[in-house]
């Protein structure tokens, strides 16, 4: 990447934060509104890609010390694990439960085990997308 993309870099600084926040919003919102693990994960991945495009790969590696291969594996394991939990409780594989709870700060909140499954999906998607893009871009 060229080093004098001043506009790109300045915009990215702000935009990346917005995209990251938005992707978390999308992810958390998925149960009732458009969004969910897949989209949330992909948009987070795209914000990381944006960072990479403007600041270069070394900066990213320095600041986000995550092994994206491991991240995707952890994602799949979480997804399978939530399935296994229902087996332990004697329900068919991947049975999801949900319920409303009164939490201290959030008030009446719906908690669904599907969210954990979705976390797995999101992590797998982030890991894989970033991993593919980084490996292709490192190949010179």
């Amino acid at each position, binding site marked *: 990447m060229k080093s004098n993309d001043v506009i790109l870099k300045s915009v990215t600084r702000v935009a990346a934060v917005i995209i990251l926040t938005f992707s978390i919003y*999308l992810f958390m919102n*998925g*149960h*009732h*509104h*458009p*969004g*969910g*693990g*897949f*989209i949330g994960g*992909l*948009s987070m*991945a*795209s914000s990381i*890609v944006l960072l990479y*495009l403007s600041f270069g790969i070394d900066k990213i590696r320095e600041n986000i010390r995550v092994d994206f*291969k491991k991240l*995707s*594996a952890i*994602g*799949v394991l979480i*997804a*399978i694990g939530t*399935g296994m939990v229902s*087996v332990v409780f*004697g*329900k*068919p*594989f*991947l049975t*999801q439960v*949900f*319920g409303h709870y009164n939490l201290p700060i959030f008030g009446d909140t*719906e908690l*669904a085990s*599907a969210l954990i*499954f*979705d976390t*797995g*999906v999101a992590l*797998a*998607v982030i*890991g*894989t*997308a970033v*991993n*593919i*893009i980084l*490996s*292709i*871009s*490192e*190949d*010179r």
Partner: protein
Amino acid sequence: MFYTYIFLPLISAILVPFLYKYFNRKVHTGWFVLLVPVSIFVYLLQYIPGVAAGDTYKYTLSWIPSLELNMISYVDGLSLLFGLLISGVGSLVIIYSIFYMSKVREALHNFYIYLLMFMGAMLGVVFSDNLLVLYGFWELTSVSSFLLISYWYERKSSRQGAQKALLITVLGGFGMLAGFIMLIMMADTYSIREMLANLEVIQSHVLFIPAMLCVLLGAFTKSAQFPFGIWLPDAMEAPTPVSSYLHSATMVKAGIYLVARMTPIFGGSSVWFWLVAGIGIITLLYGSLTAVRQTDLKAMLAYSTISQLGLIMCLLGVGSLAVYFGPGESGTIFTVATFAALFHLFNHSTFKGSLFMVVGIIDHETGRRDIRYLGGLMQVMPITFTIALIGGLSMAGLPPFNGFLSKEMFFAAVNEVSKAGIFGLGSMGILFPIIAWVASIFTFVYCMIFVFKTFGGQYRPEKLTRKVHEAPWGMLFSPAILALLVILIFFFPNVLGKYILTPALTSILPNMPTTLYDLKISAWHGINTELVMTFGVIVVGLLLFKTAKGWIQVMRNYPQGLTLNHLYNQGLSGTERLSASLTSRYMTGSLRHYLIYTFSFFVIVLISSLLLLHGIQFDFTSDAGISIFDVGLVLGMIISAGTVLFASNRIVAIVALGALGYMVSMFFVIFRAPDLALTQMVVETVTTVLFLLCFYHLPKLTKSIQRIPFKLTNLVISIAMGLTVTLLALSANGHKLFKPISSFFENAFELAGAKNIVNAILVDFRGFDTMLEISVLVIAGLGVYIFIHQRSKRREQNEIE
């Protein structure tokens, strides 16, 4: 509770790497692993009184209840017998392996993971009532034994042995799957027990014989029957504890288990009898003849296993006649044959297990396994010798060891077959006792060779690679226990018979009342044909053993070109050549060719099925009106598609393609599918970035290739493809064959608590799909990573060179 124990090996396999990492320096990982089979064994013991009283236990674990696809397990006599063998011998094998496998040099975590996987798979096989679940575990035994055999994967012979075992057993497994599917089709159930309740339907069905053949293929390949047995000697490349586990107690017995389990369904037909008993007795003879000419102790035991499995198989075949005769005097005689099969199965596990461990000790202490180098070990290893003597004489069928009892019953059974007079046995029947007798002589001979060539004769330390001394107690413990069992069973066979074997017999032959006949095993049964035959075996066997030097050499000169192994190797290399030449013809490395294959296949299959099934119907009545936005978007899309086609610069094409994708997502917005629109937009962004990254690697877009046929093919394919998709989309809208399922998803909020139906489908209703999808995604991602990094690594190496 039951499932906790059945899945215990598989669950604890996950813990093994951590145990290895944190404790291995102080404690051998095997000590932790030992807890697993021991606790299963103790747990299963509590079933013995109930099962002996004739009870069975059923456990259900819901899997897909809506399809009646559940994991149902039954504990009955047969599965309990196998369960006890698997966990009991498993415990002994693990104790032995603690002393055999060095905690410093060996990758113990791998070893115990594979071993636990294997144990769990075997337990799954014997307890499953659902045929498909049984098949799943069956293949897991193939896979885990592949990993075990190739445990020392840096050796070429290990890899080849593992490959051979996998190819042959999985081939049989596929056959078996086909057989199971036919059975499921015939009986319309997955459950073996429900099939037993429905026997008439199955037995009068056209698919009865094909299903039987397919199931037998699986059983025969797994149990190393002739001519599939060639994988078993090569499987001896595995570490000895594995050999003694896989080949004495578990893996090869899976086929026996299957045949026993299927006897109530298929037994009583002449095809079943001839195949099971006939192949069994041929395997017995082939195995014993081949074992005699081996010089490697482990190979000798491998062929002896093949031969003994043949014996058990033959007995099961003979026993299946009981189903034909039904309750009554003739039926009773053959019921005893099935009993003998179970008895010998148990005995074989005890003596063969101890013999394998003895070979492991010899190998470990002397560094040699070849009888041409060994001899006189009796003087330095007296305890090992005693164990080998007990095991060897039991295998030879001599008193006072358990092998004698079951072999006498075997002789009795084959004598009965020659008199049975059905299934064309009148003239052929006499072959059974003759072959059995000849095979027993050779069995006797190789047992003598095994024991006395190794332990008797001159002690020649100069030929051995290590300083020989007696093995440590830990290595002697397990074989000693098994040897003790060998003797105990001889003196108290009826305890085993009453509590373990008779219930197992009841589950193989449910219609035969056990009270009608006397199932007492007795060491002395008067001077009868069987005893005379045994005397003949000993006399002729001893003569042959004394003169062995002369004739064994002749047998060893048997031409290699005529062996089954040679045939296998030829076949394998032939298949490889064929597939290589076929593959190189279509895998040209040109992406354009692959796209042509894919698209033409797609077009041909879809268009022809649309035409054949009269699928082309249009229905525009319920279409929405066309708004100005739609027209604008379509125009935009056409323009950008055209730009992609005629762009002279690749970057323009990529940008135009991206624009096309964004406009598709705009369509989703118009049609109120925000989830789809979001996904499409993000995916489009990411793929465009990917494209730009690949840009560096792509060749310059040139117009150098201007040949007409080239362009014409492209034109035809692309138009056909576009046409197909258009037709498909229009006719999909034109058909309303089934009620739309969308109404089901309307109650997403009640069922899943989600207001977003799309997400409810993704994580709740079709969560399984999503789980597998992300697995595929991750695997693809790792694939990309590996491809690219391998290549750049190679390139770096080239640069260094």
